[in-house]
């Protein structure tokens, strides 16, 4: 039986092959993991700054917040637009479209494969962090960990849908990566990667809450680090964004594919 075009055999084959593919490029993935050091740079800056008091995170809470932000980012990175643009430009997309499986699943599988490959590197970096800051060490409760995992996975889903939306525009314009940059900038500043959301002036916070960005890093990171956080509101917002984006992506994708075949593919 197929659910969304998937059954157990397809899932296993997709994940298995993509994981094997990712394992071949371990050096690259280690470097990518390392390129996520930004939260640590910001942590060293915030913890030495006079402005720390306005964050509402005292003691080791700040260390834990930024480590969690690092981890959440590691497992919600999406580079779908870049892969898709290349596939579309080089014509690799056409055979994928012929298969009786939605091509987006292929990208989902390769991201999940990458996350699995990334796990040891991310754990290693977290280990080094605890060696330097032993007082910040903590083990989240099982329930807390599962909730954080779910929240991170939802963050991944939202990011993936946002990028798929931009990637679908590839059918109309070849330069989707330029648009992706415009999406990345508000993500960078308002997701909580560089500063916890509480650092911003109340008016900005109020406004940012209506965008998907704080639910991509800030919310999952707070769940993981054990900060008091409104779980129901956070998950509701994440679900709402998935529910809003998913139909949009599917509609735009279908229109795009129709246009793509009209061009003779």
């Amino acid at each position, binding site marked *: 039986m197929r659910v969304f075009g998937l059954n157990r055999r397809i899932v296993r084959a997709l994940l298995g092959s993509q994981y094997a593919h990712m394992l071949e*490029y371990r*050096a*690259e993935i280690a*470097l*990518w993991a*390392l*390129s*996520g*050091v*930004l939260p640590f*740079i910001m942590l*060293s*800056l915030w*913890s*030495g*700054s*006079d*402005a720390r008091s*306005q964050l509402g995170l005292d003691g080791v809470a700040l260390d834990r917040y930024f480590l969690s932000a690092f981890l959440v980012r590691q497992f919600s990175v999406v580079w779908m637009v870049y892969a898709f643009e290349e596939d579309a430009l080089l014509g690799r997309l056409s055979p994928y479209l012929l298969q009786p499986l939605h091509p987006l699943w292929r990208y989902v599988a390769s991201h999940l494969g990458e996350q699995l490959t990334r796990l040891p590197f991310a754990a290693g970096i977290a280990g080094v962090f605890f060696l330097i800051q032993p007082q910040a060490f903590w083990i989240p409760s099982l329930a807390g960990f599962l909730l954080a995992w779910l929240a991170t996975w939802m963050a991944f889903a939202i990011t993936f849908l946002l990028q798929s939306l931009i990637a679908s525009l590839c059918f109309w*314009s070849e*330069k989707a990566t*330029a*648009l992706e*940059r*415009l999406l990345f*900038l*508000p993500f*960078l*500043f308002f997701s909580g990667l*560089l*500063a916890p959301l509480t*650092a*911003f002036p109340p008016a*900005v916070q109020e406004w940012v809450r209506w965008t998907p960005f704080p639910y991509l890093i800030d919310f999952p990171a707070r769940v993981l680090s054990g900060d008091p956080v409104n779980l129901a509101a956070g998950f509701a917002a994440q679900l709402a964004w998935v529910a809003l984006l998913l139909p949009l992506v599917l509609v735009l994708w279908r229109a795009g594919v129709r246009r793509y075949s009209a061009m003779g593919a």
Partner: protein
Amino acid sequence: MGRYWRTLRRFWGTALATQLEYQLNVLVELLAVALSLGGSLLLLSLFFGPGRELGGWNWNQALIVQGFYTVFDGMTTAWLRPNLGAIVTYVREGTLDFVLLKPIDSQFWVSLRTFAPAGLSEVVLGLGLAGWGAHQSGVVLTPVVLVTVLLMLMVAALILYSLWFLIAATSIWFVKTWNATEVLRALLASGRYPLEAYPAPLRLLFTLVLPVAFLTTVPAEVLLGRASLPLLALGFVLAGVFFAAARGFWLFALRHYTSASS
């Protein structure tokens, strides 16, 4: 020498012509530059407030640092990323062989082949921001200060280029490290803020190992008239060492490069 100069003009002329064909793209790039600077300033402002400083630097002084960072970010976008990021592609597709066969220095070719004009807008904005910050801090620009700042900016550019080149050249071995340079980019982001804002071990790291300090903090200090002579000398030495290392490493890498056919 004249040949290199003429080649360079050709390279950049064609790059400009190609870019201008994508007008919408240029607009998107300009919008991205504006958003990026706006976001950076918002983030920087979070560290300041009544009676608050960042590592002993006040808002106007920190603006100079942010301005110089923007200049070098623009330089990265305009020049380093398009050229050095492509080395991986040459290796992977075997076209590095063609570069090596050309009667022109291969490092010159891979380093200066093209440029992205969108980055220039960032350079201009950054210079403007640094100038504004200096003006607000009451800096009087004497010819000596101006010449020293320009010299230090050139030292910084040389350091930045050498660092990028060193990392980009490793792609001769690790063919698929698409963006080994992304790690560098992430680390260089630390140059957005004055060096004194970081804890001591990081300060040492950012001065000697990964000399981010010389990109932004040192030129800003020169502008504010409080840079020490030994530090400036260290900058020159480091630039020389890093450039020599980049050159040596490239020649070493080429000896180990087995072309697509062999």
